[in-house]
């Protein structure tokens, strides 16, 4: 009887050991594992007792106990089977290390956990692939891998951007984490290929738009000239039409010999001849801006005396003319002046304009009117300075 029991025990112990190993792999339930362990231990103890019995040196287990042990072993067998089924079911719910590794390998991002000395603890397939492409080897040392990564990457917005090829762009970061009292290095690589492509396209698009903007500005500068030429053409067309009409009218006049219409015909011919004699360009076109200002000042009996050379730079010339015009108007309006003196000093592209006038001197400080305020705004926007002096005479000084 004991021999059969011993055989049965051996089988049970073997099954228990198998079950115990599976439990360790498949479940995190410590209670289950502990129960398995205790049952195994008990079985081993019973085995030893029955072995001693067989030797008949010491009687430990009597017949009644044998029956009890057999019953208990059968119950134990039942428990083993139930727990095995339970563990198998639980396996699909509990996440074990293998599950974790499998999941990480399927992720598109690259992951690596290593000890502080760089020894890798957990690396997923994506990280291994990147490591192989970069170093020619799989992950052997996370620190050395990261150094190589940094050498081959661009630092953008706090991350290292690695471009393996057009379809593989990753941004990496590294940090130290603490887990259950131990420190680990975590390296994460996030795939940004789509984002990188969009960024490239956006950059190209911005360049193209910038170029279009510049062309538009250029076009807008030229379009006024084109418009003017169109106006001239329209006028010429009108004159051509007028010529046609006057020729027809003249022919009819000659044939009808209607003297009363003579004056009208002559008047029309004078108009046409005037235009035919016109050079078609602006007689003042070649007058410099300053000459236009001079001509305007003379019309109101004011003389402008210029000491120095007018600026050649278009932008500075515009400011100079605006200032001169404002001063002429103010001198004529408030000081009843008939002479304006303008001094121009130039040194290495920097200009100083001083405007003075004769006539009535201001008795007190005068607030800046619309003209001077607009002038100051214009000068300040262009990075220049404007100063007004009231005593002993009114002086407008501009530096640009």
């Amino acid at each position: 009887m004991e021999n059969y029991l011993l055989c049965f025990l051996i089988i049970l112990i073997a099954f228990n050991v198998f079950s115990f190993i599976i439990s360790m792999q498949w479940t995190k339930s410590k209670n289950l594992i502990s129960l398995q362990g205790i049952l195994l231990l008990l079985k081993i103890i019973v085995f030893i007792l029955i072995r001693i019995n067989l030797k008949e040196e010491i009687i430990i287990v009597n017949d009644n106990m044998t029956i009890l042990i057999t019953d208990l072993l059968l119950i134990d067998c039942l428990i083993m089977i139930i727990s095995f089924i339970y563990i198998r079911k639980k396996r699909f719910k509990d996440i074990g290390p293998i599950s974790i590794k499998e999941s990480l390998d399927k992720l598109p991002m690259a992951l690596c956990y290593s000890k502080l000395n760089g020894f890798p603890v957990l690396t997923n397939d994506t990280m291994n692939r990147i490591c192989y492409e970069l170093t020619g080897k799989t992950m052997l040392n996370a620190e050395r891998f990261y150094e190589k990564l940094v050498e081959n990457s661009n630092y953008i917005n706090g991350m290292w951007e690695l471009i393996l090829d057009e379809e593989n762009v990753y941004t990496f970061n590294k940090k130290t984490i603490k887990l259950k009292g131990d420190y680990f290095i975590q390296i994460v690589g996030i795939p940004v290929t789509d984002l990188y492509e969009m960024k490239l396209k956006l950059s190209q698009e911005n360049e193209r738009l910038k170029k279009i903007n510049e062309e538009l500005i250029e076009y807008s500068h030229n379009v006024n000239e084109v418009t003017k030429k169109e106006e001239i053409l329209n006028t010429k067309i009108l004159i051509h039409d007028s010529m046609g009409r006057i020729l027809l009218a003249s022919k009819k006049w000659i044939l009808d010999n209607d003297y009363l219409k003579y004056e009208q015909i002559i008047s029309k011919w004078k108009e046409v001849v005037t235009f035919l004699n016109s050079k078609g360009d602006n007689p003042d076109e070649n007058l410099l801006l300053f000459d236009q200002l001079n001509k305007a000042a003379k019309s109101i009996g004011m003389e402008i005396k210029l000491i120095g050379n007018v600026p050649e730079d278009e932008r500075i010339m515009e400011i100079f003319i605006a200032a001169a015009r404002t001063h002429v108007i103010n001198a004529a309006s408030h000081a009843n002046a008939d002479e304006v003196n303008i001094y121009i000093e130039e040194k290495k592209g920097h200009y100083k304009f001083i405007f003075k006038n004769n006539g009535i001197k201001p008795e007190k400080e005068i607030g800046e009117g619309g003209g001077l305020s607009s002038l100051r705004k214009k000068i300040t926007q262009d990075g220049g300075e404007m100063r007004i002096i009231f005593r002993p005479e009114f002086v407008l000084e501009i530096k640009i």
Partner: protein
Amino acid sequence: MVNVMIVEDQAMPRELFELYIKNSDNYKLLYSIENAAMAEIYCLKNAIDLVLMDVCTSNGTSGIEAAIRIKEKFPKIKIIIVTSMPEVSFVEKAKKAGCESFWYKDLGQMKLLEIMDQTMAGKSIYPDSTPVVEIGACKSADFNEIEIEILRSLINGKTQNEIAAERGISRSGVKYHISNMLNKTGYDSYVQLTIDVVDKHLIIPGF
């Protein structure tokens, strides 16, 4: 006799106006200049009664801005704005500047003198609307005020972000209005749209 000053940068239209005035019994030509920036100076001590003011004069100076300055100092001087551009904003700007009348140049003699007569008689002659031009598949009157202003900013070289900041709207808002205009005109890009608008003088850059 009404003393007239002509401000027109193109010689041919200017000479035409001069001829009309010289041939008229009611008007006397005092000055004929090409730069609106100088117009105010001529008004200081010369007895000018009426100014025929072009909008786009030499060196890019605006006749409407000159008109504002003249009206501030010499409110009795009457100003007729003359232009051939169908620029949408000129009529409104001329009214705000206080100009008495506004005339689209067709270079017909009787019409100019007629407008001058009516203006000196105290009437204010303004066109009912700006000339309508075709922009792509639609007419210029089909654009609303915001669309015109956005177009103007684009033509003056501003980026969409700058326009959005200026108008206090989002960039998507700007894109929405541009998209509407492209749908109306049938153009594929805003570049085509802006070129056509400038070509047809619906919007004049810098004015």
